[in-house]
């Protein structure tokens, strides 16, 4: 399984999760875990997703998600899980 972390940060509005999840579903990305908070109107979401079955290049997925964020007006990052694992786990 190839896991990666999707983070969404920005001002809360209708349909953020819907748009992100639609994109993930269309690209064969399975969501393993979601945690989400709203602090003072700011939307903060983290998803752990499985990108084993993606058809596109992972770099393309990262760029498309970034573009999707710009379209919705939030900041979306898609990163391989390893960077967090390495930094925070021995």
């Amino acid at each position, binding site marked *: 399984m190839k896991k990666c*972390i999707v983070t969404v940060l920005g001002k809360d509005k209708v349909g953020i999760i819907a748009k992100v999840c639609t994109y993930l579903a269309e690209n064969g990305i399975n969501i393993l875990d979601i945690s989400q908070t709203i602090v003072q109107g700011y939307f903060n979401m983290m998803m752990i997703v499985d990108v084993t079955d993606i058809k596109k290049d992972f770099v393309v997925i990262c760029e498309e998600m970034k573009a999707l964020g710009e379209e919705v007006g939030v900041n979306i990052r898609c990163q391989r899980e390893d960077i967090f694992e390495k930094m925070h786990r021995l």
Partner: protein
Amino acid sequence: MINMYEVSETNKMIEQENLDVRTITLGISLLDCIDSDLKELNRKIYNKITTLAKNLVSTGQDIETEFGIPIVNKRISITPVAIVGAAACRTPEDFVEIAKTLDAAALEVGVNFIGGYSALVSKAMTPADEMLIRSIPQALAVTERVCSSINVGSTRTGINMDAVRLSGEIVKATAEATKERDSLGCAKLVVFCNAPDDNPFMAGAFLGVTEADAVINVGVSGPGVVKKALEKVRGKGFEELCETIKKTAFKVTRVGQLVAGEASRRMGIPFGIVDLSLAPTPDVGDSVAEILEEIGLERVGAPGTTAALALLNDQVKKGGVMASSYVGGLSGAFIPVSEDQGMIDAVLAGSLTLEKLEAMTCVCSVGLDMIAIPGKTSASTISGIIADEMAIGMVNQKTTAVRLIPVIGKDVGDTAEFGGLLGYAPIMPVNEFGCETFVNRKGRIPAPIHSFKN
């Protein structure tokens, strides 16, 4: 499983605290390119570099996107050219031809610097070494991307004072040759004692002859991350201070190790080392000086600076060593003046002098780095400064280096502009008493005794 707090901590380091991987440096051995025909040598060098490094930049960019970590520079280090060109070059101009080939190869593969236009002369010089050194001013004037270094001493061999004397003249001549651009050539020339074979950082990078045919070395950075972490322990004791630096250095270095492993796997080239350095940039919030001030100094250069730097340097190593499978290169805090806004401010405020910087180099990597001095400074004075710095390295069994820029046409009170990562620097005053008679003595300073440590 990774939690939200950890994810946001990492991303905050990247977005707000300037965490980045400073460089992926591909070391390429040119020993198998050696040929007695200069044209053939140049052809082989160009082909080998452009073949091996073809995917270096694109691989770096892919890793950047996939992991979301900026990789600021992709660079190349090569076998010291004095060795590679010894069989083919008859004049210093022949060596300049090799410099042009290196520049063209670097442009082709898209790297911003290629290091290794170097001579290792810690004990004595071969005719080829001397020719290469004499060709440096011209080579750095006619190329954009080539970086040069001269190793003039080591703890084992002592200091080659003939090379020190020549280096002073070469630094001055390089400044003259690039005087239209504030003597920028000198920013690409480093004089070393105990130069490491696997340093990924420019301008002093080269690939030693004991290294593999090709190797990936990575330099990490992150002064901003350490500074932010230390803001949380203001007023606490040294134990907490040191623990915080260690933990932060560990996290920063883990990212470097990850990137090094990925780059190595994707390019099919073995991983060499991670260089655990705190390398500043001229950006605000990416400064080693700011860390020292956070530790408790009003300004860098104040009494206590050397002790604070010693502490910082040691804790960075202690934290970083466990985070990487192989550590090497220079590994420590860099204190370049022009590349660190806090250092520049300290010089302008009158707190930081050349003499204090020299003292600071006793306890950190690397040395008198990116310091602009008056253009009128004589070659023998520059040689004297080099000799002092080399002596510190030789006696303390550490790497030291000198990257001085005598800015032609400028004097104390003026500012030199280098642009980009090299930054800008106020011209610093130099002690004007002479050392010509000392520098003009021939031969070398013997290696120091390794016992009776006092």
